[in-house]
């Protein structure tokens, strides 16, 4: 084992100046801006679902969209704040109210209109397009978040990964509601909550190691 004073000497003699991180709110805003651009590009490419204006009249639908979006934004802010060593972990609770509102709203919609999904149900073609939207939104957002938060790999990987993934999941669910006609009860539950839960679970399982990988590759 090398002596601690020797280690200090070698660290300080090899040291290069570093650029300080921007404030977490600014960095979260940057990432959310990227998400907005991504969603806009998909919207231009695919077109918004035809009945969006009509659906937005429905209070339950509008609330659930707004709550999903708020969950995504607040979870992103929380992830960027908590990734720093000197911030309180209580920031992790930031997206919780929006998350509760969103989930309870989705649950309420399921309960009140347990709509049968037409005679043919959701067409296979629509499900495939749903998956492609999921991948198109979720993957770039996760990758960028991983790179931006890579330094958290040595600090609080699990908490940061789960909050970050929740944000990706909520934004992806918002995208799904914007682009696809999937309002029938079970489908809402599956696509909305399923997406968020899937991203959070993936984040919990692989987020830490993915951030570690980004840390080794880019630092």
């Amino acid at each position, binding site marked *: *084992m*090398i002596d*601690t*004073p020797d*280690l*200090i*000497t070698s*660290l*300080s*003699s090899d*040291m*290069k*100046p*570093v*650029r*300080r*991180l921007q*404030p977490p709110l600014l960095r979260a805003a940057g990432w959310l801006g990227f998400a907005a651009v991504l969603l806009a590009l998909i919207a231009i490419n695919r077109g918004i679902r035809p009945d969006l204006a009509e659906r937005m009249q429905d209070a339950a639908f509008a609330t659930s969209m707004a709550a999903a979006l708020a969950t995504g934004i607040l979870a992103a802010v929380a992830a960027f704040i908590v990734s*720093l*060593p*000197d911030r309180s972990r209580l920031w992790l609770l930031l997206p919780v109210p929006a998350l509760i509102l969103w989930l309870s709203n989705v649950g309420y919609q399921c309960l009140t209109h347990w709509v049968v999904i037409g005679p043919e149900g959701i067409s296979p073609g629509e499900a495939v397009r749903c998956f492609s939207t999921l991948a198109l939104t979720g993957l770039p957002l996760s990758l960028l978040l991983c790179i931006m938060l890579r*330094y958290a790999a*040595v*600090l*609080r990987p699990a908490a940061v990964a789960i909050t970050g993934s929740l944000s990706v999941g909520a934004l992806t669910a918002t995208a799904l509601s914007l682009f696809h006609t999937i309002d029938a009860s079970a489908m809402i539950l599956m696509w909305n909550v399923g997406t968020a839960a899937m991203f959070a679970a993936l984040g919990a399982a692989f987020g830490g190691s993915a951030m570690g990988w980004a*840390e080794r590759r880019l*630092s």
Partner: protein
Amino acid sequence: MTARDLGERAVVLRVVEGGGPDDREMPRLRDLDWSILMARAQDGDRAAYHRLLTEISPYLRSLATRRLWNGADIEDAVQDILLTVHAIRHTYDPARPFAPWLVTIAQRRLIDRLRRQGRIRRREVVMEPEHEAVAEPQHDTGLDGHHLQAAVDSLPPAQQQALRLVKLQEMSLKDASHASGMSISALKVNVHRALKTLQKLFSDRDQS
């Protein structure tokens, strides 16, 4: 809590923090110094960085001593924390106090270390002297020097030579190849065959 309780608590805290008088005034009084040193280090001031790391080391050691017991482990942990501080020094914001930033990093690294040790302890068993209590040496196992010598002598000459050079004299394959004139692959083949023959010889003897 009464004033007396507070007084007693302060005494206890001082005892726990241990070390010399320097330790006691840390980290509050040093915080500003360290914050300035780190800000200068981020801008590339190597002397400031050297001073900062030298000054925080005893403090980190006192933090590590509270969680770890083994001396070498404590020093290892201090170095681990210093390396982490180095790797993520860009995350420090000079507008904020330095100590909370440092303490969180230190605690995270120490907890990770304890968890890793816990995992290793669950999987591995410390080798105690009583684990070595094997059976009495048996007589006539057929493995004494005399028998072994006889068995080696019964091998073909090339195998004998390869075995002597590589296994008994522990030469490297290259040196052994030089000394014997055999190629490295021939040496490997001969050693392998010799060991196989010996193994067979002794297992036959054990069974008989």
